[in-house]
């Protein structure tokens, strides 16, 4: 596979499928953030719950940022960039932040 010229597309649509996979992932994380928000509101807006909710939201926002940058990396012509370890680790850290905030929301 030679690095394609601008406008030459992979017939398997690999970059597009990968972009949509990122979109699905951000959508899933949005659903989780909404559920966390619902849990936080139901738990009463005490300071602890609020702090945990902020951590959850930070995880969600971080995931949106990583996904956006990754999608931009895929969008260029020619051979798309590969996923870097930094992005992969970053997105997992965001998930862990969501879990950390979630534990707070559930316990308090």
């Amino acid at each position, binding site marked *: *596979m030679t690095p394609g010229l601008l406008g030459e597309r*992979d017939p*398997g649509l*690999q*970059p597009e*499928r*990968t972009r949509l*996979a*990122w979109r*699905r*992932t951000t959508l*899933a*994380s949005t*659903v*989780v953030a909404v*559920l*966390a928000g*619902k*849990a936080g509101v*139901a738990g009463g807006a005490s300071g602890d719950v609020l702090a945990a909710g902020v951590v959850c939201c930070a995880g969600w926002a971080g995931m949106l940022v990583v996904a956006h940058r990754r999608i931009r990396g895929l969008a260029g012509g020619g*051979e*798309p960039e*590969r*996923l*870097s*370890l*930094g992005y*992969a*680790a970053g*997105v*997992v850290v965001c*998930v*862990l932040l*969501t*879990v950390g905030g*979630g*534990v707070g*929301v*559930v*316990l308090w």
Partner: protein
Amino acid sequence: MIDFARNVRLWFSPAEVRDDGETPDYRFSLANERTFLAWLRTALALIGGGFAVDQFLPGLRWGWRVGLALALLASGALCALRAVNHWVRCERAMRRGEDLPVSRFPALLGVVVAGVAVVMVVVVLLGWEG
């Protein structure tokens, strides 16, 4: 365990992965990336399930409800960590031209999810509400 420690070290030294072996066809790397994302969505679904248990089963005894919710949240975190670990291992195996790593994690996760589902059915049917 030593393997795991080596993998963790690799997470923080991306250059080491890049220098290893030959760069595979980018389509293989993208396929590996999509698998990683699919595992992340699995992790997010588990986390969402944890919030759902906490929120939508208010009649359940506190211990059961919080215990189940925390177990689901923890399994989501585990799943996410394992996703990035497996992604690194696959990427490295492809660069070296080795067989892709095998894993018993999917089977384990399947058993755990089935177990949680059965527990939930029993809890709801028997009405162990507080």
